[in-house]
């Protein structure tokens, strides 16, 4: 499942209390690479997520304080949360095969 963050409280529920691995996608409307990466993430979650991995899309202009708390500067900035901790992260575009393996790894 892919979620677009609707409120800061929503973040806490999805990332820390859903019992899923949450891939957080910090993005902005003006960011070209984000526009390319987000659909790849969504497709990977649908195909390989297995109900165990979710995508949480966070618009950094809408949720500036949240982005600031996580020290987001350049984007896309991807953080993988498992059991309340960030276990993996990267910045910038990644190709489809890499994203697919990432999701597959956390779905098992």
């Amino acid at each position, binding site marked *: 499942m892919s979620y677009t963050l609707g409120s800061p409280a929503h973040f806490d529920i999805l990332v820390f209390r859903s019992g899923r691995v949450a891939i957080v996608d910090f993005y*902005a*409307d*003006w*960011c*070209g690479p984000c526009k390319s990466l987000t659909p790849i993430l969504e497709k990977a979650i649908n195909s390989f997520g297995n109900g165990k991995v979710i995508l949480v899309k966070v618009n*950094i*202009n809408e949720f*500036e304080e949240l982005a*600031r708390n996580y020290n987001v*500067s350049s984007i896309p900035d991807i953080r993988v949360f498992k059991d309340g901790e960030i276990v993996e992260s990267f910045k910038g575009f990644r190709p489809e095969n890499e994203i697919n393996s990432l999701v597959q790894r956390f779905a098992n």
Partner: protein
Amino acid sequence: MSTNNYNWIDDNEPEQGEYDFDLFVIGGGSGGLACSKEAAILGKKVGVCDFVVPSPQGTKWGLGGTCVNVGCIPKKLYHQGALIGETLHDAKIYGWQLPDNIQHNWQQLCGVVQDHIGSLNWAYKTELRSKTVQYFNSYAVFIDAHTIELTDIKKNKQQIRSRRFVIATGGRPKYPDIPGAREFGITSDDIFSLSNAPGKTLVVGASYVALECAGFLKGLGFDVSVMARSILLRGFDQQIAEMIGNYMQRIGIKFIKPAIPSKIEKQSDSKLVASWQDESTKQIVSETFDTILFAIGRDAETTKIGLDKAGVQVDNVTGKIPTIHERTNVPHIYAIGDILLAKPELTPVAIQAGRFLARRLYSNSRLPMDYINVPTAVFTPIEYGACGYSEEDAIKQFGEQNIDVYHSYYKPLEWKVCEHRPNNVCYTKIIVNKLDNQRVIGFHLLGPNAGEITQGFAVAIKAGATYEIFSNTIGIHPTTAEEVTDLSVTKSSGKSAEKAGC
């Protein structure tokens, strides 16, 4: 004023204790951001506020000031869009089998430009945070000489006390005082983010903003007219200004001059009607346009920020702030950027002034800002780069008999194979002071890439290069810049400045 008898310590007030900040900068544009970051790097507690009052058409933007949002950056990208259109005309000659009648998509270009601006707004915010400058998205008004009141978008207010202030509030486009101007006209505040293509456009004004906007709109395929009250590019070299006007006419921009609009109305089909008095017949004439863009000058943002409460003097005529080494009449209140009286309104000038000021205040630096020989470029369809005196200013300053003007027309090699590219539109001249070893005191170049070319020559002028040094410098071939090192014909010799061939 020389730096010898200038008092670098602004007053005897206590440095610490009762203030929230060491330095508070009002305005987050080119100057304000550069100054605040530099002061923070030097260890001071710095705050900056920035607030964009929406344009009459409702346009707003983020942190970064005029240059980033509604000035240099979008202007250059739109200009580039137009230049690419020009190159498409050359392409067939160079062998590219492009289809005829290639159209331009306004939304695509607008989207790309606005996305880039968004990334800059974010980058500036991040940078302030990383340099520990506290940022307020609020409008500042002085309550007294050491206190400002900040109001944010939700109308929340807070008061800030600071040991020193830098005013860097910049300017906004003027509207003429005629019916319909504010309701129906747009300015440079709006053009770069228009959601729909502007269509048939009237640009009112003769400033570089007017001519640059008219230029890229024409290049992108729109029907463009320019209405000017008198001369073009006042303050710039007038020989070059006239050549720019001629080139713009040649590419199909219609000039309505001398004229000023008397009113703007909107028709039921949403088209706009501009009316003006025709110079020759003295009759009132009208024409319909889709868009009317006013570029008749900019007002300094000094009227609503409570300068009277702080005791800061403002020039009556221009609304700008007189300064000496960027200090206003109030010793601990400084000003930089477009609001300064009698200083060039350019981003690099504001940035350097801001940085040098922070260093003079907070380190051992005593280096004043140098406003002489600031190079500049105008990105009209034929570009113009300049550094130093215009020809008329050089004549006024030194006397016509004491200067020489070396000049030449030229045609870029890349144009020579393209029949449609005109002759005798590219031109360069340097002005030398005969009383000072033929020192180069003015540089002017009209042609493609003028901005890029002028930058290097500005260094030569700053270093005091003479005509001999210019002329002994070997040219790079084949370029257009090498024309400058080849200059040998003077205006006074009466010989032709046109070139024969390679």
